[in-house]
């Protein structure tokens, strides 16, 4: 329950920034995909459950804001968060691999959610989102005690 509430709170703030604030301050004509980056940060610092709930709620808010089909973004974000959690568990928390994964998955998200968008814009958004990973990294690192859990493999090993 605690993870769920934290995820709800973070997702509200993050989507407000992503949809309300950043479109006014375009970086190279695009806005960062903060929800995905935040979900990936949570996964990186062990907040597995919180990360998934964040992807879920963030996707819903995103769909409401963008008048997209309700649940579509959630489905996509949860799917990608699952992929990153598997990468984090099986390939380890190597910052380079994690950063590359964030870049690729952000690109995949945009290519699937907006197939008509020019590839150059999708690429720019992926680069910008990866850059924002550095921005969100330290706040999530500081707050990790609120949402940190053990990974699947750690939990498997334990039991």
């Amino acid at each position, binding site marked *: 329950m605690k993870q769920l509430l934290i995820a709800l709170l973070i997702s*509200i703030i993050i989507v*407000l*920034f992503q*949809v*309300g*604030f*950043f*479109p*006014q*301050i375009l970086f190279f004509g695009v806005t960062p995909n903060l929800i995905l980056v935040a979900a990936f940060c949570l996964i990186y610092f062990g907040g*597995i*459950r919180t990360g*998934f*709930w964040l*992807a*879920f709620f963030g*996707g*819903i*808010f995103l*769909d*409401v*804001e963008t008048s997209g*089909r*309700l*649940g*579509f973004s*959630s*489905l996509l974000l*949860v*799917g990608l*968060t*699952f992929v990153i*959690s598997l990468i984090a568990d099986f390939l380890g928390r190597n910052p380079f691999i994690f950063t590359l994964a964030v870049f690729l998955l952000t690109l995949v998200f945009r290519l699937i959610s907006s197939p008509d968008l020019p590839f150059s814009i999708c690429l720019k958004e992926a680069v910008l989102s990866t850059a924002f990973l550095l921005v969100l990294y330290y706040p999530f690192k500081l707050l990790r005690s609120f949402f940190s*859990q053990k990974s*699947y493999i750690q*939990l*498997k090993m*334990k*039991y």
Partner: protein
Amino acid sequence: MSARKTYLQPLLVFGLSLFLLLISGTFFGKFIRLGISSFYLPLTSIFNQVGRGLSNEIIFWKNLKKLSNENTELGKLLAERNSQIAALKEVREENEFLKDQLGFSFSTKNSKTLVADVVGFSGDGGSWFTINRGLDDGVSVNDVVITEGFLIGKVTVVNNQYSRVTSILSPEITVNVLDQDSQTQTSGVVTGRFNTSLLMEKILPEEIINIGDTIITSGTDGFFPRGLIVGKVDAVFDSSSGTLKSAEIGAQFDFRKLEQVLIIKAR
């Protein structure tokens, strides 16, 4: 057990998302969307405004240097334009002056003309004044000086850049004139009278001249062109001997207020 639960959690969230996607087109889906948007969209609006404000600030600071450079450039341009305006103003005044000059009966079409500024006056009430044109501008002695159709005088002394004009108020100048308003075309000779007025002499007794008549140059002296206004008749003096009449002519403007004059080159 916990590990299984952790595995199940993504599946649960995934299932919920799928469920939402399936019901999104239904009434229930629309109800959920409406519920979320009713509290969420006002918050987005606030963030939008904050973002816009910040964006404007960023644009302002980003463009500050550019604006500063533009301001400097505009300042230079303004100074340049002001200088051009001042020059054009001078040209306009000169043009207006020329237009005024050409508006009278005397035509300067076939004459070489030159505009000059009056830069100094004599201390005796108007016998002469100095203009800012001289030999360098092609001014020569005996050039006729007029303004707005009025005869002013003639150039008597020429330096390289300045010239002295002796006005018709000076006794040194003699002009052949005629009465423009008289049916008999009364003619005579005008000379300056101690820088205060003009005296028209050598008027034949049978010729008619009335107070208020306009006196213009007749051009018969071969020096001053015909048609230039000299002044108006203030008084007529009949000779006691009955030979010749004379008249006092008043100048129509204050010589001391002259600013610009037109020089007509001597033929």
